[in-house]
């Protein structure tokens, strides 16, 4: 009886998942549809005569934008880890005074609307000449990830066994040596989780891209898709093909890194 019940639940689960993922399927479907079939009524449910013309358009015009996004994503990851890992160490293991307040600030920082940050950055960048620059976008994008990263590192590092740190101390390691040779290697999984999300958020960012990098030569893929839609609303197969390509990091994250995501989420759940 149990087995039959489980089978029935699996079938229902597949149905729910299919419904939920229908828009994703639709994106694929449209990306492979021939331009002449785009306006069929009813639309083609399946790309019976698939075409790669949409993808050809992507590779013809979107490669620089993909490269820019890659660069911004990697820069954001680097900045995030460099700022957040030592801070997590100070908060979790060095008894930084005022860490309660700092924790509070980090949580509140995540609640500030992106549009407000974008205006503040615009006002600053316009004077510094940082508008339309990759560096400027990296700094702005890292504001999405850094509070999260510090909180994640802190939660993980607080759980590092005290014996390990004691042993380093006995061997004569100072705070810096302990950090580099013990804490950082042990926190590898947290670093992977932080890096993955920092990259994904920077890659997906639209608000900062559309405000701080509007007129640049190097625009990230999100903004490129947006402008593409604005410029040619008829080529939806090409738009959807770009969208598919822009989704690749998310897919990679889901397939390769699921256990790191889980590790990151459970890292903080000591108290649960």
């Amino acid at each position, binding site marked *: 009886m149990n087995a039959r019940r489980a089978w029935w639940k699996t079938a229902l689960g597949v149905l729910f998942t299919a419904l939920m993922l229908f*828009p994703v399927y639709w994106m694929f479907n449209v990306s492979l549809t021939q331009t002449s079939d785009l306006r069929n009524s009813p639309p083609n449910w399946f790309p019976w005569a698939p075409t790669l013309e949409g993808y050809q358009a992507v590779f013809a015009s979107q490669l620089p934008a993909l490269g820019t996004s890659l660069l911004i994503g990697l820069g954001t990851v680097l900045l995030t880890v460099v*700022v957040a890992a030592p801070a997590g160490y100070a908060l979790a293991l060095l008894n930084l005074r005022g860490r309660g307040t700092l924790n509070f600030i980090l*949580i509140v920082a995540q609640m*500030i*609307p992106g549009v407000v940050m974008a205006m503040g950055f615009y006002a600053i960048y316009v004077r510094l000449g940082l508008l339309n620059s990759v560096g400027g976008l990296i700094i702005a994008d890292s504001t999405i990830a*850094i509070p999260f990263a510090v909180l994640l590192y802190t939660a993980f590092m607080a759980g590092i066994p005290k014996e390990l740190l004691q042993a380093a101390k006995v061997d004569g390691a100072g705070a810096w040596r302990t950090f580099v040779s013990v804490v950082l290697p042990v926190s590898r999984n947290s670093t992977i989780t932080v890096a993955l999300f920092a990259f994904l958020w920077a890659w997906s960012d639209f608000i900062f891209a559309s405000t701080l990098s509007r007129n640049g030569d190097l625009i990230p893929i999100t903004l490129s898709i947006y402008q593409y839609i604005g410029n040619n609303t008829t080529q939806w197969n090409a738009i*959807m093909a770009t969208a598919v390509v822009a989704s690749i990091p998310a897919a990679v994250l889901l397939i390769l890194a699921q256990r790191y995501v889980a590790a990151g989420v459970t890292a903080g759940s000591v108290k649960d």
Partner: protein
Amino acid sequence: MTTTLAAATARRDGTAGAGGSTPPAPAPRSRRRGPRGSQWAAIGFAAPLLAYLAFFYAFPLWRNIELSVHDYTIRAFVQGEADFVGLQNYAQIFGSPLFGQALANTAFFTLVSIAVQFSIGLALAVFFRGAFRLSGFLRALFLVPWLLPLIVSASTWAWMLNSENGIVNSLIRAFGGTQINWLTSPETALLAVTIANIWLGIPFNLVILYSGLQNIPEEVYEAASLDGAGPWRQFWSITFPLLRPVSAITLLLGLVYTLKVVDVIWIMTTGGPGTTTTTLAIWSYREAFGTGQPDFSPAAAVGNLLIVIALVFGLLYLQLQRRQENR
């Protein structure tokens, strides 16, 4: 909405972090190095973060307040001198006919989004609670909408809801209905962007509520089962009450994160037709960046108002979380 994952983790980290906010335990004092020595090291390691927060959080926020009490035009921006106007920008936005509409749109968008996301998320969490074949895999697939760049999901929804060629209208026509101009008619545009946003938010609710469910001991359900309680009864007498703290946190966080949504709405409708999908966040974005003539001062005023609203709910959330810890 991507930041919602930060929320999910931050909630948990916040739990651990806030737990550490009690005064330092006596243990470090017995270490060989005096507390003062290690305090300098601590400050050294935190220095990059402190500098970062000062330059890239506090400074932009300060600039934003400054924008809102001056009369900034693009020229004033470049030349650096703008007239101080006090609270005039705030008076202007409160007096604007758009204010009431933006507030109502924000309320509708936010409340309907989180209510429906939460209900569907909870139903799915309960469904996935008992492990069955493929359940882990399917649950992972449910994360997809959460991980996709918003431009991707928003433009896909825009095409699906397209009046003439969208799949949604095609289905409606197939069942004998009449075409709905989802994104171009003032009556349905807000509903349409809300539907897309609900879809985006389901994974977040599912993940948090599912992890909340894992903390309810299986024995409680077994006991209820022995007492003859059916699934429906079990849900209302066990799941729902025991999940209440987690639910409250999910709803409040959802609220804070939905209030600041710009991308979904802007990509699908740019706040239109007219101003029918203009929320506070969209209003601010449009004034500053959405038109040919940027008007930063009122935009900053709306933005600051949005911060205040978000912080009210945010602090409520923190308070709730703290109370739960002390239990």
